[in-house]
């Protein structure tokens, strides 16, 4: 019984990586994930990953921010302590536009980024779950769950044929920590 947990195909070039994904999919080998040092457009479509919904979150946070500060201004300057400034109306809507805009942007930015961190499990001090250390440098890595995907030799050959510069059989899932 092999102790291999994950098979990693390391590519040196993004186009060859795409070719590798195609080859594996043609041969019905399921891909666990792909790690790249830069965003490669088109992978998510190949792997069937749905569009990000962060835009909706951003919009909702923006609405929340604008509403919050506009309501605050209304309460403070109209409800709680209206001031007589030359007899002009206390509910001076044009004057509230700049702050409403600023908090719309502020809430959008923070809300969206925090949602991104939450959804992707990013936070300061999180132990990095890295399968291949060079995946953040110059290697484009396809990870395949070795369990059930046999024979491993066939997968290795498929990866090599499609241009992988190195194929690794890792006994541990993550190499980043002891």
């Amino acid at each position, binding site marked *: 019984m092999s102790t291999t947990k994950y098979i990693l195909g390391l590519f040196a070039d993004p186009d060859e990586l795409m070719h590798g994904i195609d080859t594996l999919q043609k041969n019905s080998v399921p891909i666990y994930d792909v790690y790249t040092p830069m965003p*490669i457009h088109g992978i998510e479509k190949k792997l069937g990953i749905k569009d990000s919904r962060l835009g909706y979150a*951003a919009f909702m946070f923006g609405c929340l921010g604008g509403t919050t500060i506009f309501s605050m201004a209304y309460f403070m300057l109209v409800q709680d302590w209206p001031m007589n400034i030359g007899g002009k109306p206390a509910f001076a809507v044009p004057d509230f536009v700049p702050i409403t805009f600023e908090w719309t942007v502020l809430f959008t930015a923070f809300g969206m980024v925090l949602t991104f961190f939450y959804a992707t499990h990013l936070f300061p001090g999180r132990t990095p779950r890295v399968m291949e250390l060079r995946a953040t*440098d110059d290697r484009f890595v396809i990870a395949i769950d070795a369990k059930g995907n046999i024979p491993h030799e066939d997968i290795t050959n498929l990866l090599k044929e499609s241009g992988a510069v190195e194929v690794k059989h890792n006994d541990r899932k993550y190499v980043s920590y002891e």
Partner: protein
Amino acid sequence: MASHSESIIREPLITGENITYAQITNDVLRPVENMPGKAWWIGFTVASLGACLWVFAISYTFWNGLGAWGLNKTVGWAWDITGFVWWVGIGHAGTLISAILLLFRQNWRNSINRSAEAMTIFAVICAATYILAHMGRPWMALFSLPIPNQYGSLWVNFNSPLIWDVFAISTYFSVSLVFWYTGLLPDLATIRDRATGIRQKIYSVLSFGWTGSVKTWQRFETVCLILAGISTPLVLSVHTIVSMDFATSLEPGWHTTIFPPYFVAGAIFSGFAMVQTLLLVTRKVLGLENYITMFHIEAMNKIILLTGSIVGVAYLTEFFIAYYSAGEYEQYTFLNRFIGPYWWAGCMMYGCNVLMTQLMWFKKIRTNIPISWVLSIVVNIGMWFERFVIIVVSLHRDFVPSSWAMFYPTWVDVSVFIGSIGLFFTMFLLFIRVLPSIAMAEVKLILKSSSEQAKKKLIAHGGLDSEQVEFYKESLTSFDSVNIKDYKKA
């Protein structure tokens, strides 16, 4: 796709032979992974001495009160607000590069956005210190925030541009910080995965556990695009609101409707000049000539020329409107910039900002590094004088001649200003020491399409219009990082 081929007539964004993905990582991380050289230490020593001067002068101000500055009853705002507007303006280029140029798909921004954004953050910090300092009692800053207090609650006045400014600057600072840090995550992960020991632990905490999986990158790109989309109107709003600090008053010289666009153009103008000042030195000292190429330098010079000319048109418009308004106080204010006791400040403003930048029309000057560097400093001097003229020169002549006065800075004024420059450079030098000064992931993105070696391959492959190839080779002659002899043979 990462590798569509680009038209040959476009100049390369990455020069040098045999640049690989690994090479990019090595080049960018060299200053982060090794001990800094002599140039860095000299710069850091001088800058931190400046920062110490700033700490001393600011402490002196807080201890003794604002009487330590040269302000008087007529000129109640002087070097403090001049410095504030100057620094905020400088901060604008970073967001312009990272947000607006992203929306316009300008790939050349990829190698300068990181350091320009860092510069934005440090410049806004410097600006914010002026705001706190000019309150005299900095703890009173609490009253600019809409929080309940024991006086009623006595709320802030949302009708006031000064309160808008508090919201604009704080939002701008925090959103820029978030944008910058999110962009840093993949590069911090790169450092983490190459480091060992305590360094690895530190960068591990800083990189938030980034892995670079497909879903992470997809979300990352969505976040960056939306942040760019909201930062674009944000950056325009910030200097608009800063200009309203003046424009909503009734002071001749301040009370003009042209201020918002005029200030925004001026801010981008001075910001790009500061980016130029910093990057021309940084690329040399850190050996990043292959990533920040002549194309980048020239493109920034073109933006300086454009925004400088917009500022020039705004100056002319101001003069014309002063004449056309037939308001005698308005006319006096503008005439006074040339015939009053501060004529020299007016000359510095118009001379440095309008006349000197017009030199950029010449390609020889745009592509000359020493001249570009000197001109970028001239622009920043000119922009400091612009704010000085708008603030002090407008204030020093009152409606009542008995309150006419001059402003004489004390040593504290001067020390706070010089000190703030020291503070800025201290932060910038620390930044290039511990963080990657070029966004590696983004530069890797354009390696296959826009690098010199990719174009070389295209030429070698043949089948291109020979006129276009000649045009391309011609454009390379101004590059200092390209060995032009390679092309003569071909």
